[in-house]
């Protein structure tokens, strides 16, 4: 073989064989034993719209995280001011994330300022007004510190959600931060979206509070609420009818212990084989629990998760082992999920679902079947059309087209691209558009033949003249595809990816591969007339 063919042949074979190797695992059910270990093993990654699954975008309500931080600081400040004898007539959280303090007189205000700068440098004064003797001061968090709080709330939420998903056991989940306060979650193959949503979205703030038994629940429900108490409900579902009853409790609104005290949470079963959750506490939690049970023997301790009472057992004796239980007529799945949530920890702030897209597995399979059918039928029609129209040259273009498809699938597999339903559409579209480069070349060659040029010269000028046109035409489509790639989400990104790979691959196959075939044939056979 002449040396000028050699490098082109090597290049073409390299690309073709490489693409085939990467395609292979996708095309077979399971890679056979003889398939070398160091060869690619992965099938093309399918998007959620094809394999079924759930896509969620959550928003972390960072404002809530800031509010609860301000609430904590306010409580500390209140206690400290009392201790330091800096007298105030009013001190509370206002407008969500600000603290208002009314100080006794201007002298106290001076004392307060010195103390605040030393002990609470994170609080800045935004306003102070004198009303008679009193001085009213409005404080807020240092903006930088507030931003830190918001950021860490999102980071923490991301971490917690990742933990929950890991423990729930989903294969190949994708969890990523999106923008400032959003979290993108993709869970392939989830068959119970409702359960997954509850698992991910629960704030899971676990609190232990005492039930107020000194006061009448009826009176409180009637509106006569004792100071420092709240009413919380326990939801009880009738296992037969599914009807939900809400049992009210009068609770002393003072948190004695939170989920921070947990070391572990497991599902266990009681003598009736009903699941319950066994908690074990960390050393600090165990000490705390030991003290609070000792102080409150005979009283009811409510175990509260996200303001829902789960159970309110009577403390029969002091519990020192650092073990506690949550009972609550769980189904096994509910108990399992609750244990996961408790182990993974609570979210630092509530989350909201901004976007949800769920595709059932049967619909995904449907889409795959329809997509493959479209590719095959569309492909066959185009292949036949090209042969009828361009005869032997059409066959060459068809070879290029098939190679084009192999390259696209190979590249997708090699770079772990995701194939989506619009992606398959992009593949089909590429089939239609990929022949364009060859059409341009062939039409040119026909023109040159009409001008009376011999085959080789016609071929040469045809390719040369069509080349720039092909470049220009493809670059513009490529620009559109790139913009789509930047902008698109999930399925549409898949479309942009296959489209751009398709453009690049079709230029290679139409210009390099077909040219090579023609040159090779012309060098072997004396051709009088081009079959084009």
């Amino acid at each position, binding site marked *: 073989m002449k040396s000028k063919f050699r490098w082109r042949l090597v290049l073409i074979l390299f690309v073709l064989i490489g693409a085939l190797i990467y395609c292979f695992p996708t095309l077979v059910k399971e890679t056979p034993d003889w398939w070398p270990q160091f060869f690619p093993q992965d099938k093309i990654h399918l998007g959620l719209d094809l394999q079924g699954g759930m896509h969620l975008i959550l928003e972390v309500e960072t404002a809530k995280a800031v509010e609860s931080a301000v609430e904590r600081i306010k409580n500390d400040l209140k206690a400290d001011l009392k201790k330091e004898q800096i007298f105030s007539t009013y001190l509370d959280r206002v407008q969500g994330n600000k603290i208002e303090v009314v100080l006794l007189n201007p002298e106290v205000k001076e004392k307060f300022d010195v103390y605040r700068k030393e002990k609470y440098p994170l609080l800045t004064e935004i306003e102070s007004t004198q009303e008679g003797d009193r001085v009213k001061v409005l404080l807020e968090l240092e903006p930088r510190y507030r931003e830190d709080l918001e950021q860490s709330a999102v980071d923490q939420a991301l971490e917690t959600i990742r933990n929950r998903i890991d423990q729930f056991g989903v294969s190949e989940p994708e969890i990523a931060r999106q923008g400032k306060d959003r979290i993108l979650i993709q869970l392939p193959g989830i068959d119970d979206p409702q359960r997954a949503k509850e698992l991910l979205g629960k704030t899971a703030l676990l609190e232990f509070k005492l039930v107020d038994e000194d006061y009448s629940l009826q009176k409180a429900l009637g509106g006569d609420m004792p100071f420092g108490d709240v009413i919380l409900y326990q939801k009880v579902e009738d296992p037969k009818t599914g009807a939900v009853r809400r049992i009210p409790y009068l609770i002393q609104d003072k948190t004695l212990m939170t989920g921070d005290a947990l070391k572990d949470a497991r599902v266990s079963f009681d003598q009736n084989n009903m699941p319950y959750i066994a908690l074990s506490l960390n050393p600090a939690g165990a000490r705390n629990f030991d003290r609070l049970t000792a102080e409150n023997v005979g009283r009811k301790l409510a175990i509260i998760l996200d303001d829902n009472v789960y159970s309110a057992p009577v403390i029969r004796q002091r519990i020192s082992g650092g073990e506690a239980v949550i009972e609550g007529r769980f189904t096994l799945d509910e108990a399992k999920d609750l244990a996961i949530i408790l182990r993974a920890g609570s979210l630092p702030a509530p989350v*909201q679902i901004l976007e949800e897209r769920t595709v059932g597995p049967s619909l995904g399979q449907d889409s795959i079947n*329809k997509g493959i059918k479209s590719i095959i039928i569309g492909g066959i029609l185009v292949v036949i059309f090209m042969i009828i129209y361009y005869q032997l040259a059409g066959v060459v273009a068809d070879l290029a087209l098939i190679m084009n498809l192999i390259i696209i699938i190979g590249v997708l597999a090699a770079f772990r691209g995701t194939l989506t339903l619009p992606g398959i559409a992009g593949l089909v579209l590429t089939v239609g558009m990929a022949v364009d480069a060859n059409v341009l070349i062939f039409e040119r060659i026909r023109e040159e033949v009409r001008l009376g040029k011999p085959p080789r010269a016609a071929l040469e000028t045809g390719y040369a003249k069509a080349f720039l046109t092909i470049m220009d*035409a493809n670059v513009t489509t490529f620009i559109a595809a790139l913009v789509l790639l930047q902008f698109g989400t999930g399925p549409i990104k898949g479309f942009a990816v296959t489209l751009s790979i398709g453009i690049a691959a079709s230029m290679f196959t139409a210009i390099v591969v077909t040219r090579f075939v023609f040159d090779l044939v012309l060098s072997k056979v004396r051709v009088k007339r081009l079959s084009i």
Partner: protein
Amino acid sequence: MKIIKSGTTIDFMGKRGGAFIISGILIIAAIVSLIAHGGPNYGIDFAGGTVIQVRFSQAVNPADIRESLKDAGLAGTVQRFGAEGVGEYLIRLQTTSSDLEGLSATINDALAKRFGGETFEIRRTEMVGPKVGKDLRTKGLQAIIFALIGILIYISWRFKFRFAVGAVAAIAHDVLITIGVFSLTNKEFSLPVLAALLTIVGYSLNDTIVVYDRIRENMGRMRREVFERTVNISVNETLSRTILTSGTTLIVVLVLFLMGGGVIHDFTFALLIGVIVGTYSSIFVASPLVVMWEKRFPAKGEKRRR
């Protein structure tokens, strides 16, 4: 085989008046429809809302589904999805729910109550909150604008400015008419449709550029020729290619439209319209506009650029 005989001399430029009337009517119809409907009929991607695709084991009356939703306190529209007799329906609600109980659970319960739990399967749920919808709308608009700017820069660089004007006008023409057809047929304007629009932009341009390339080439060869004739010859010379490529593309898009399934039905419908309009515009809009621009602002002594 040949579809277009070689050496055709159809007077495309002479017929541009008629073409402009047709395009004008289509564009006016599109704009009127858009105004009458108060903008595009945004799908949930852009407007926010919920779509649920349910498949029953046998066909049911959509009114019954609507009724069962009403019992659950939800107002929604129900539409048959896919072929008749399959028992597949699309439920659309304007409401969204950001809390965990979720609408899908409520709807599942409502349907189970009326039809029995085993008779149906929820195959797809899409819920987009209003905030995300607004974000996507802004981003989508940005995407189209960025694509157009990128293309404008590329064409101005490779060709001359007057070509870029014609090309961008042709694109605007295609996009507007496609949006108009969606508005007239009351189809939803969704994220995939936007993706289809961007593809149409690329495709229509592809066609236009092939013609422009030939014009540029012929301008060098036919310096003596009147510009309008040069353009006309170029369109004729590339006609065979234009029809062939559009033909193969149309074949596959039609296959996708007919067999790709309901999920991408709107997407392929947009492509179908776009391919047809895009082919038409590269012959009847993009090229005549270059001629008219040339007549209005004749280029003097410009040198060819490559």
